[in-house]
């Protein structure tokens, strides 16, 4: 019998799990080792399908813990034997405790920004020719627009950084100048600063009506965690 692994924490994790149902309806339990606590449940297979039900079950368990304390979440689909998990905790305890210290007291907030390039380029004529010709013409337009798009994405990144200055402990930003979704940012925010962060983000959104925002959180700190047994 394998274990499905949800997240890692310390002594505080033990009080947070409760009676929530996990993946395949299994009741989560704890594996305590080397001053760390892993939240797991019994799982009979080697693999797991990416289904809505499974993902929500994973998230349900991790969020139950997150409500009380910030754990290191495993990626969805982490299946491991108990022996291997215990060995991982034993050999990696220093690195895992350092990761826990990094995220302690904080949560992940997400900001995604779309630049509506179709609206910006509205009215541009579709070039004549077959599909191969139109493909190359599209690539030509993309190459010409690349420099401009890179500058735009960098400007939006810098502006967002200024708008949220001092409110994020750490930030991870991915820029995709050639896509509609030009910026995806993960911010590690102290729980006590969440209200200030949300207010600052709300003010920032009103400054840039040409940008479309998707903001969400609080999430477990997936972007700031590397746990891989």
């Amino acid at each position, binding site marked *: 019998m394998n274990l499905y692994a949800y997240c890692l924490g310390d002594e*505080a994790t033990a009080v947070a799990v409760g009676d929530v149902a996990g993946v395949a309806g299994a009741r989560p339990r704890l594996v305590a080792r080397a001053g760390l606590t892993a939240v797991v449940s019994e799982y009979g297979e080697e693999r797991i399908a990416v289904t809505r039900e499974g993902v929500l079950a994973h998230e349900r368990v991790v969020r139950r813990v997150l409500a009380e304390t910030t754990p290191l979440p495993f990626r969805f689909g982490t299946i491991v034997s108990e022996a291997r998990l215990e060995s991982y905790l034993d050999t990696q305890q220093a690195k895992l405790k350092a990761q826990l210290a990094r995220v302690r007291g904080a949560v992940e907030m997400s900001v995604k920004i779309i630049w509506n390039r179709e609206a910006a380029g509205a009215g541009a004529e579709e070039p004549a020719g077959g599909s191969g010709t139109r493909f190359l013409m599209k690539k030509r337009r993309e190459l010409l627009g690349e420099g401009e798009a890179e500058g735009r994405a960098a400007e939006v990144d810098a502006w967002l950084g200024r708008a949220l200055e001092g409110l994020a402990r750490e930030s991870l930003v991915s820029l995709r100048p050639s896509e509609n979704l030009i910026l995806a940012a993960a911010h590690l925010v102290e729980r006590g600063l969440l209200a200030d962060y949300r207010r600052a983000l709300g003010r920032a959104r009103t400054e840039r009506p040409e940008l*479309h925002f998707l903001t969400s959180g609080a999430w477990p700190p997936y972007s700031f965690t590397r746990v*891989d047994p």
Partner: protein
Amino acid sequence: MKPSPEVPLPVEPEINTLHAAEFARELRRVSETLPPRINIDAQSVEQGLAKLVLTLIEFIRRLLEKQAVRRMEGGDLAPEQIEELGLALMKLEEKMRELKAQFGLAEEDLNLDLGPIGRLI
């Protein structure tokens, strides 16, 4: 030593946007690259190798596109040649999309950090 208790949170996250359909469309495009089944163990080695190989192919593919555009702009190609070249590159782009999806790789995964020189793509 027990860590001090943290500020408790509501169980559900807040999600805020005025453009739900637009973001759903963009995020669906990303989710299409996810594989249907996940096994972290076996996949990591295979995926690492696939990432390296596909990164190099993607680099060459983009060079070919740029070269084709330059030749088109330079008047080197007859209209039939432009069409044929465009079709071939279009099929190559589609095949790369399929391969990335098969290995669960997003576009930003295909890159190499060359240290002081910067990133390959």
